[in-house]
């Protein structure tokens, strides 16, 4: 009705406004578009380095092209499979355990009901999120240090032998996974908590009337509601499965050679190869590979998800 009236009063207004709206919105968007263009798209020209024998004095535009040599170098190097195994392994652990932990914490927060308590829990769990990896590394140092670290103190007070964490790689997958989840649990559980809050209480009530127990409610109401959030977050995470948080993998193990087997991931490899061998071509190739794999995986996962459940797909 309203539309008709305005249309009658000023016939062309609606259309012009429509267009004006587009330009205004484009104008709003433009700073971001320009920023992203400058700081994200322009450096992508640099991906050509991955196909070059990069010489510092010749630079990006004059260095000779060598085809896929850098990729071959990377893939055939001894460490590559280890790097891939570590990178993917850690990411899978972070994705799966991180999600389970976050969902569980969110569900339990919902069970608590008492607002004051929920607030306290949330705030404390959010604390680690604010720490830089450098500070976190100080904390892990105080925990795992051999002579006076807390964990070793505990072990000794129970009559055990101290463990030299910084020279034994086998402890690190566990340590890094726990720390990674620990740092993000506050934030991630909030995401799911928000989704749970949006579930209508009536659903639970009617389920109770039907005689559903707590677990059944979780299984048939809560989980399906969280599904799309879980899927979206997982797809996004899969896009980064070849990447990892440099700070976590560099600062916590302190770049200790004895741990490399267990904690070396593509990102630490890339930065180390820039730092020590100066082989920019190979490090670019590794970065390129990360992007390609991420891209392919996201598109593929999204395709699969779309086939199963249209609404849950990312795009």
């Amino acid at each position, binding site marked *: 009705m309203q539309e008709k009236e305005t249309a009658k009063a000023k016939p062309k207004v609606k259309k012009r406004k429509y267009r004006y709206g587009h330009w205004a919105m484009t104008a709003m968007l433009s*700073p*971001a578009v320009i920023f992203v263009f400058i700081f994200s798209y322009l450096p992508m020209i640099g991906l050509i380095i991955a196909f070059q024998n990069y010489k510092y004095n010749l630079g990006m535009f004059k260095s000779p092209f060598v085809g896929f040599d850098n990729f071959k170098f990377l893939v055939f190097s001894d460490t590559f499979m280890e790097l891939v195994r570590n990178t993917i392994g850690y990411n899978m652990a972070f994705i799966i355990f991180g999600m389970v932990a976050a969902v569980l914490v969110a569900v*339990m927060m919902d069970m*608590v009901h008492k607002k004051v*308590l929920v607030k306290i829990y949330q705030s404390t769990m*959010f604390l680690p999120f604010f720490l830089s990896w*450098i500070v976190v590394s100080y904390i892990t140092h105080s925990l795992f240090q051999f002579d*006076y670290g807390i964990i070793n103190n505990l072990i000794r007070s129970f009559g055990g032998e101290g463990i030299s964490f910084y020279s034994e790689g086998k402890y690190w997958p566990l340590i890094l996974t726990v720390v990674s989840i620990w740092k993000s649990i506050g934030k991630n559980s909030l*995401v799911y908590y928000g989704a749970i809050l949006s579930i209508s209480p009536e659903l639970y009530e009617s389920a109770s009337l039907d005689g559903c127990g707590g677990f059944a409610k979780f299984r048939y109401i809560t989980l399906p509601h969280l599904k799309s959030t879980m899927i979206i977050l997982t797809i996004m995470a899969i896009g980064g499965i070849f990447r990892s948080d440099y700070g976590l993998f560099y600062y916590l193990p302190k770049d200790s050679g004895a741990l490399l087997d267990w904690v070396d991931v593509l990102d630490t490899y890339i930065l180390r190869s820039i730092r020590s061998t100066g082989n920019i071509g190979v490090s670019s190739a590794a970065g390129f590979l990360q992007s390609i794999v991420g891209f392919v995986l996201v598109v593929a996962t999204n395709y699969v998800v779309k086939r199963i459940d249209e609404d849950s797909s*990312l795009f």
Partner: protein
Amino acid sequence: MIENKFQKILSKTIANIILIVVALSCLIPFVIIISASFTSEGEIIKHGYGMFPRGFTLDAYKMVMHSSGELLDAYAVTIYTTVVGSLLSVLMTIMAAYPLSRKDYKWQRIFNFYFYFTMLFSGGAVPSYILISNYLNLKNNILVLILPLMFNVWNTFLLRTYFQQIPSAMWEAAEIDGAGQFKILFQIIVPMSVTGVATILLFVMLAYWNEWYLCLMYMSNEKVITLQFYLSRVLSEIEDTVNNRSGTIAMNMDVSNLPNETARMAMCVLAAGPMMFVFMFFQKYFTKGLNVGSVKG
């Protein structure tokens, strides 16, 4: 019925216990750091780290404060970049998130993908360096600590989800009244999404506060360094000296004067403390949870 009630109480108790354990695990490391920073070095060597300070001393803080005017400089720089950077960043994010949240915006899908793509592809460290230092000439300019972090796609998508939850009737009505899009955004949409804006503001502040890589790469003026870079530098200097990877004996490096265990902990407190304080103001916005959405909007 009674059984049901009992079950409910039981499960509630279990949930509480587990949450308390998780919350404590998040809290205890802070207690350890804070208590270590007030403990004397000798006590730590003798008894190790602990939950409560054995004895109370401000030595570590005195040492950290005394040893450097740099720490104060670092504070000034970090506060400046955090405040200025996050204000500008939030403004830009709001303006970007709004069109992206409007399904009737003509290029919504294209731009959504344009942004999403950068989450997957990146040019790498060296090309970025070449761009920023050789073409943008931002080296040794404080802007370099602000600009590259100013726009974050993840935050934009987060805010977009908040905007999407506002009923379309709100802006439709305003458009019919002849309001411009800027007016709609800042007078209707933003006030209705305070939570979302507060959330990304906090995230952005955090990103600026914890920044060190840009500082390492682009700043060689020692007056202009960020707090975290200062921390990382102290750390790396200690490691390099103690492990002595160098082939020659360093003369100007006084091993005995390097910050020791407690001083490092004091620096942690000084570096992380202010953000904790800021968080208290934001806390109320987080009780309702966060929202994430998809690229398709």
